[in-house]
């Protein structure tokens, strides 16, 4: 993974000093609340419901084992001994003391970490595929470009005060695992017939209050021009994005208002002027960064391993885990492993300090000392030998990291919700737990197959409920917590937004409703059909009929 040189280190050290001074001036009353807010947000610091929240950046999801150990140490010394992985690769600490934050940032800087631009109206952490560099269907490894974009976007002087937050995602695979179509800018790396590298650029996607799938701004931008192309988009947005109403301030509103054709024309006009400037990439810089992502020293291994096959044949629990949590690798004899942070009854995405250390140990022992964060709020060890899987599973199970539910109904994407988040309409973690309790039978879960259930505690949609096969959204009705349910959303190449099925439910009703939805699926399913395919084949009517106990007919719903 990328290692800082002296320049990177100096920049984050200077950032720590800058924030320490800003915090001192804030405490001394020399910076007002309003003046300090954007400054602290651009250092990931929120003032939350019970305590401040600090969002630590995990750039494009990569973590080294020594960084995990430092995070564990910080979680113990400055927090309540755990952290929460968000859907954007970042780690959130829910209980730091305000006055400790400068010290926490200084600690992070010692392991080349920071909280830069994890919040605020600026370019946020760039997300990508947790299987980058190892996925068999990968066309181009997105990590070098992700790092180049990280550097370009860190303290970009022109784009620190945008109308609203701005999120990038990059995908370099045939199958999009980075959800590029629901980001402000989505970059899909491609190779053309001549073997050249370039990108398809999407803009104006986003979830939140007004969920919109992005539009293609350009089908082909040569790799060396990707940054200047993105600068052209950002400059247009910075100048013309709406600032009068924060609900209409995301770039998606500008794209809609201009129409994609006019938006594209303006971007191209700006790009024509800046295309070949000092910012344009060159081969040597690309290679300098790319060499940090060279493949580790893989052994030459056979595609099969007898000990692994024996273990799988004799340990059904191991076999189930392999089915759900082990993924193909482009190198013979290797696999990628997902460590589930979705143990039933825990807060989805939460990880204790001891677990962070376990992951660090497992990474050192089995995966070249590295781990990755998946946007589904799980961790990935990307380079595990087939022969080591059984041992790894045993240790992961002891650490509570081997729940074999990846991709299943209980692998719930869930935001922190009303238990922590000041913006929440409703709690989300107890809903996730109630559903996990209702579907606690693993055999049954396996039979149901792939189901993505996503929960957000409010319209900000941090839990990506719009793209869940089943989406649950916390809404406020007369001061109490209700949950609106949608069906049919999906991510990936066929990204689609779910549709609301009807009136919202009280918290205690939600598990019953999910059970009814699943019952319809089980009755109607043909063979091994997936849940999402059944929803798409049948439409919402039979689900509505079962849930609301009325004959299927069109009803007025509000999104």
């Amino acid at each position, binding site marked *: 993974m990328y*290692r800082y*040189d*002296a*320049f990177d280190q*100096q*920049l984050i050290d*200077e*950032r720590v000093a*800058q924030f320490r001074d*800003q915090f001192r001036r804030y405490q001394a009353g020399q*910076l007002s609340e309003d*003046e300090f807010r*954007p*400054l602290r947000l651009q250092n990931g610091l929120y003032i939350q419901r019970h305590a401040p929240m600090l969002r630590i950046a995990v750039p494009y999801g990569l973590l080294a084992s020594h960084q995990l150990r430092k995070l564990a140490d910080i979680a113990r010394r400055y927090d309540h001994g755990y952290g929460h992985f968000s859907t954007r690769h970042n780690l959130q600490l829910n209980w730091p003391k305000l006055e400790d934050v400068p010290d926490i940032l200084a600690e992070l800087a010692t392991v080349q970490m920071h909280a830069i631009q994890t919040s605020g*109206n600026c370019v946020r952490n760039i997300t990508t595929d947790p299987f980058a560099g190892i996925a068999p269907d990968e066309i181009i490894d997105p990590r070098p470009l992700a790092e180049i974009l990280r*550097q*370009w976007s*860190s*303290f*970009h*002087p*022109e*784009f*620190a*005060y*945008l*109308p609203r937050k701005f999120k990038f995602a990059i995908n370099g695979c045939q199958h999009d695992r980075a959800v590029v179509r629901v980001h402000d800018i989505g970059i899909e790396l491609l190779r053309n017939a001549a073997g050249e590298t370039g990108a398809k650029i999407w803009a104006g996607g986003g979830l939140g209050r007004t969920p919109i799938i992005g539009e293609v701004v350009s089908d082909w931008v040569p790799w060396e021009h990707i940054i200047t192309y993105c600068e052209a988009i950002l*400059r247009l947005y*910075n*100048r*013309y994005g*709406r*600032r*009068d*109403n924060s609900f209409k301030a995301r770039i998606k509103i500008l794209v809609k208002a201009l129409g994609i054709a006019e938006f594209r024309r303006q971007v191209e006009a700006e790009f024509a*002027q800046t295309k070949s*400037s*000092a*910012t344009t990439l060159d081969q040597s*810089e690309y290679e*300098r960064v790319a060499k940090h992502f060279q493949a580790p020293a893989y052994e030459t291994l056979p595609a099969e391993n007898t000990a692994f096959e024996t273990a799988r044949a004799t340990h059904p629990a191991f076999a189930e885990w392999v089915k759900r949590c082990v993924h193909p690798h482009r190198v013979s004899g290797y696999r990628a492993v997902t460590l589930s942070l979705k143990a039933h009854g825990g807060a989805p995405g939460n990880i204790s300090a001891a677990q962070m250390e376990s992951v660090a140990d497992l990474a050192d022992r089995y995966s070249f000392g590295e781990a990755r964060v998946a946007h589904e709020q799980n961790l990935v060890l990307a380079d595990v030998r087939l022969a080591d899987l059984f041992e790894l599973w045993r240790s992961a199970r002891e650490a509570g990291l081997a729940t074999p539910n990846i991709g299943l109904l209980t692998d719930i994407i869930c935001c922190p919700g009303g238990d922590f988040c000041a913006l929440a309409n409703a709690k989300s973690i107890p809903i996730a737990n109630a559903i996990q309790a209702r579907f606690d039978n693993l055999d049954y879960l396996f039979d149901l197959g792939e189901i993505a259930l996503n929960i957000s505690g409010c319209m900000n949609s941090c839990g990506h409920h719009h793209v869940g096969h089943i989406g649950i959204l916390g809404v406020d009705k007369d001061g109490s917590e209700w949950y609106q349910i949608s069906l049919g959303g999906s991510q990936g190449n066929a990204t689609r937004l779910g549709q609301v099925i009807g009136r919202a439910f009280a918290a205690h009703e939600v598990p019953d409703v999910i059970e009814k939805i699943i019952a319809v699926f089980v009755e109607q399913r043909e063979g091994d059909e997936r849940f999402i395919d059944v929803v798409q084949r049948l439409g919402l009517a039979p689900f509505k009929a079962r849930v609301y106990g009325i004959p299927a007919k069109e009803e007025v719903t509000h999104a």
Partner: protein
Amino acid sequence: MLDFIKGTTLAANEWKTLRYPPSAAEEHKQAGKTVVHKVTGTQAADMETIAALKIPAGKLIVPLKVWIARQEELRPRLAAGELGVWCESFEVIEDLLATVDDINDFPVIAWDFVRFTDGRGYSTAALLRQRYGYRNELRAIGDVLRDQLFYLRRCGFDAYELRADRSTDAALTGFADFSEPYQASVHIDQPLWRRHIRG
């Protein structure tokens, strides 16, 4: 009194900024709240206000709309080198460019930050310097604070009127927040990887 920053040092401010009378500022409301950050392209003032505005003698920075509407009367002042123009955060610099053959006829152009969080001025400054060839003073006025000086300078501002309640002197350290930024911009016009051999 040295209450102004020129370049990165304290200086005396030789220019006065002519503002619209407070009553003329049209109130935009949305859901009962006053809109601070108006949509790009909004009209700054009506023709009556513009026509009624008294224009004092001496070095003066006038609103963009006043310059556009009263060019005939103001051209001699421009020729004498005592007229500058300032833009609202929601105005577009291209409207000013359209009025002259050479943007460097203006000794001063100022950009008003209605709030420091309104970032339109950063892109405008970069355009003025890099695209439109403006070389004279580019001044930040309005809600100008210490913690934004570094980025303002990077984008091409070279003069700053700090908000009146803040110490200009104490703000000077803001220019030194970072020593080697990553990007190319106006000030430091090459990206880090072109400036240094990197590890």
